[in-house]
């Protein structure tokens, strides 16, 4: 399939990438058919910020937490470009019951349920929802694929999978 990819300031391209696969029973694969440029997308599109931001961090003008969210080289391409979409569900895992194949769905950029797999991982005592745990600081990747079909998207936790995995690891360590 094709993936809309940010290359550098002023350059976005369609690139070929492997087809997504379901790897968990709580995942779904969706095919976006309406997508929007969110406001934050404009930041790297119209300015070369990587070196400027690193300089700002070195000079203590910018908060070093920026690199926890955006990586050591903020906005350095290439990366999958896209954040907002309406999509058609193409496949669902066996434990997904709220949406069915063929449904048209909104794909929120993040979940309001913080568990990757609530059935398998109990919330810590006193934690009803894990919004604070869904902080962008848990991973640098907040973009997902806007190609022919989306990467496998977890129905419970809509950040990209490597973020989910990292979150799951952190959760297990917490327990």
């Amino acid at each position, binding site marked *: 399939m094709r993936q*809309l990819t940010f290359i550098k300031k*002023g*350059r*976005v*391209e*369609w690139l070929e990438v492997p087809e997504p696969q379901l790897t968990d029973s709580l995942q*779904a694969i*969706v095919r976006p*058919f*309406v*997508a*929007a*440029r*969110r*406001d*934050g*997308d*404009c*930041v790297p*599109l*119209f300015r070369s910020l990587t070196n400027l*931001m690193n300089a*700002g961090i070195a000079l*203590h*003008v*910018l*908060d*070093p937490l*920026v690199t926890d969210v955006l990586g050591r080289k903020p906005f350095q391409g290439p990366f999958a*470009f896209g*954040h*907002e*979409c*309406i999509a*058609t*569900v*193409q496949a669902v895992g066996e434990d997904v019951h*709220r*949406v069915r*194949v*063929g*449904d*048209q*769905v*909104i*794909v*929120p*950029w*993040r*979940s*309001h*349920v913080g568990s990757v797999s609530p059935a398998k991982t109990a919330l810590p005592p006193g934690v009803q929802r894990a*919004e604070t745990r869904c*902080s*962008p600081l848990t991973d640098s990747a907040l973009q997902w694929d*806007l190609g022919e079909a989306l990467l496998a*998207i977890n*129905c*419970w936790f*809509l950040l990209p999978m490597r973020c989910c995995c990292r979150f799951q690891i952190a959760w297990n360590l917490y327990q």
Partner: protein
Amino acid sequence: MLLPVPNSLEPISIASASDNIPDGYRTVAPHLQRWPGAPVLIVGGAARSIGLYAAGVAVAMGSSQVDYVDQDRERLEISESLGANPIQIPRGSIWLAKNHPAKAGRYLISVDASASADGVRFALRSLAPGGCCTGVGYYFFKNAKLPLAQMYFNTTTLHVGVSNPRSDLPDLLELIASRRFQPEKVTTLVASWEDAPQAFLQDTTKVVIHRPSAKL
């Protein structure tokens, strides 16, 4: 968690429902539910569409006064089409730093969509006592200054953080379905899917791309 699109809504009209529309909604809706009719100030800027969505929601929810401050003519015109009162300011943030109220403003609700410290300070200083300000931008600067004395004496609340769309979407979609709030007015360019690489590079408020939905 995925959310089915209601049959009553055109998908293209809610293209930004994943983030920016609910991001605007959450800055004003909870406060207007608590304070019906409360006046709202929005400082527009880098968060191009979010401030406009906030303005549209505030008007739809019955705010008595929605003032939208920005330096961009396109966004000011959109704010007017949404029913807000556009206030044009000069380019650069100096105006925001020099024109804030000295003691208290007249808004119970303010929003910084400029993603600048000057914008946050202006939005904070424009609040009436007991007011609440929400900042939606990327705030990357270390040690940004806040008017803490004014905030203290006016019992001001500042909320800064990322949006949580899934929990707001049901109420928001209901508001859009009522047609009192029309988010499509914020969209300034609709392009075909194939043209995404060119369309997304247009320096305009909101770009939407689309293609036929899948036949399954």
